[in-house]
């Protein structure tokens, strides 16, 4: 018992010491010449601390690049950290930004909950916080200034609306299979409910099977293979991201069917590989979920620093693509 307590005390002490060392080290790195840490406050340039989730996919990499590039363009001093998909790393990074007295903190929360303490620290230090791309689950809305990111429900609705227009005037039943994202994740939940909301108005649309493909090509293919065997008559595939759709295309081709013709395919994201498949006619419709929110984020940062009021929720500028639009947009696709 006693030794156990001793151990925890020791752990705490070492954690504090280690944390202190890290903060000093990071502060030393951050202060590039002259003014030292938090130089933004002194010479007028804005300092933005950005805590990224990690490099989990091409989408995320494009997101990082957009933030970095637009910060440079806007003349904002960006302090960037990569959390490698771990919340504790992100909290550590945010604490470091608070000690460095940056002007604004922005971050994409790895998970939805557990942010209250660290965000309250930021609030006490009078540093405004902007959430990007993912929301947090907290009753206290004053912890952050604004949330900029995609509206996943709207994405699902756009997908549903295309389907409704596509099958307008037809009466025979439309059998839909759905490849969901990672179970429990916000994009999976919202893209599913948005889509369901739109198609439920017409009873001819029937979701005959819906399983998670975990946002990956491998799982998308595996699940689609099973769908094809269990359901003889599939008209439409709705995949919550391009990658699952791309996996499913291989499964459909393996079954001797033509993706995009025999089975119509709707996906979300619009990454390069997905756009290529759309341009090739293998996908019918893609709802964009844009990672390029850097310019919008920098605008918000400037407004927040200037003390202007910003809307609580800013939706990323996004569009949709059909096959012709994909052909036109493909050469300039960055990610």
């Amino acid at each position, binding site marked *: 018992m006693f030794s156990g307590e001793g151990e925890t005390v020791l752990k705490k002490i070492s954690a504090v010491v280690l944390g202190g060392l890290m903060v000093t080290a990071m502060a030393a790195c951050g202060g590039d010449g002259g003014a030292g840490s938090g130089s933004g406050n002194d010479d007028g340039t804005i300092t933005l601390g950005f805590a990224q989730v990690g490099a*989990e996919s091409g989408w995320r990499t494009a997101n990082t690049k957009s933030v970095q590039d637009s910060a440079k363009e806007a003349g904002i001093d960006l302090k960037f950290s990569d959390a490698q998909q771990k919340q504790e790393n992100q909290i550590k990074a945010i604490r470091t930004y608070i000690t460095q007295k940056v002007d604004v903190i922005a971050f994409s929360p790895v998970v939805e909950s557990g942010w209250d303490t660290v965000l309250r620290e930021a609030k006490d230090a009078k540093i405004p916080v902007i959430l990007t791309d993912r929301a947090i689950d907290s009753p206290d809305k004053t912890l952050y200034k604004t949330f900029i990111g995609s509206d996943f429900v709207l994405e699902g609705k756009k997908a549903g609306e295309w389907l409704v227009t596509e099958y307008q005037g037809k009466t025979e039943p439309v059998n839909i299979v759905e490849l969901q994202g990672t*179970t429990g994740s916000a994009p999976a939940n919202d893209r599913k409910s948005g889509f369901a909301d739109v198609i439920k108005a017409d009873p001819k649309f029937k979701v005959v099977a819906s399983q998670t493909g975990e946002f990956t090509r*491998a799982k998308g*293919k595996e699940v689609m293979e*099973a769908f094809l*065997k*269990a359901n003889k008559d599939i008209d439409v595939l709705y995949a919550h991201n391009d990658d699952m759709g791309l996996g499913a295309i291989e499964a459909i081709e393996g*079954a001797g069917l033509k993706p995009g013709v025999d089975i119509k395919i709707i996906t979300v994201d619009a990454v390069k*590989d997905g756009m290529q498949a759309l341009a090739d006619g293998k996908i019918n419709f893609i709802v964009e979920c844009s990672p390029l929110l850097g310019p919008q984020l920098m605008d918000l940062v400037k407004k927040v620093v200037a003390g202007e009021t910003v809307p609580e929720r800013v939706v990323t500028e996004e569009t949709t693509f059909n096959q012709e639009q994909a052909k036109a947009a493909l050469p300039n696709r960055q990610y």
Partner: protein
Amino acid sequence: MANVVRHRFFWPLLMLVVLLASNLIFTPDFFAVDVRQGHLYGSLVDIVRFGAPLILVSLGMTLVIATGGIDLSVGSVVAICGALACLRISELGDQNSVVGVLMAVGLALGLALLLGAWNGLLVAQVGIQPIIATLILMVAGRGLAQLITDGQIITVNSSPYKLIGGGYWLTVPFSILVALLVFGLALLLTRRTALGLLIESVGGNAEASRLAGIHARRIIFTGYVFAAFCAGVAGLMISSNVSSADGNNAGLWIELDAILAVVIGGTSLAGGRFSLGGTVLGALIIQTLTTTIYTIGIPPETTLLFKALVVTVVCLLQSPAFRAKVFGRRRKPPLPQPDREQPTKVEVPA
């Protein structure tokens, strides 16, 4: 009949049959296999095709566990090998060049052997506990895979590479042929030579084996190299099947499935006893379970619970102690005291 029931493969085989049969209720033509696009097509084909990587990883895991160790790093090795092979192929001028693809595959498998040697070195030579030693590569390896892919998904368009995991040879999925080949070789080496006995001896007691003149360290080392090699081939299959390498998700948690397959197959986690055939059965049960979930449409929110229940039943049925307690009573003569409650009849799940 009693001999059949007592055979160690009886219970896992029964579970596999029950799982397969339960699909018939929802999909009457579940067992139908026809030829489409010049290759075999059907749910059963899917099970062996998607199960092939898991079979391979599990075979490697079996031998490591037989030596009393464990290899947590196989999932990362899967990701690294797939990533490296796809990266090399994507850099080729002509992605369909057989020589180029073979070079990329050779390079990736060479790296797998190297990673296995690293694990073997840490465990056999340095003497670090296997779970810790391989944990290093499990965590660091994912990072290495991401480094290779630069955090992106590398897409390749190469028909020779496609053959490994997604192609067919004489209408049969190529991946299952590879898995069968490795299985056959491993069986031959361990059961037709003294190697299997030596592995079991080392797993039973490494020190005693060493004193008896067995190169215990060398055997353990080889086990890890073999496991990494199997994981490497599995990594090629997984990435080849979807023509792309995903450093983050390829082979994620496959080590846990592999350990489960090994355990279902009747290999002792304490080492010293292994069954390669049982492992293949175990891997097939896991893949059948996954396919069953998709086919009968278990909602994703309850998938994990459903899996857990089935796995619990399989493991309980596998346990002789549990069977003796539950089913054993029926065969015993009636208990001496008549006033004690009658043994409750236990339903055998159909």
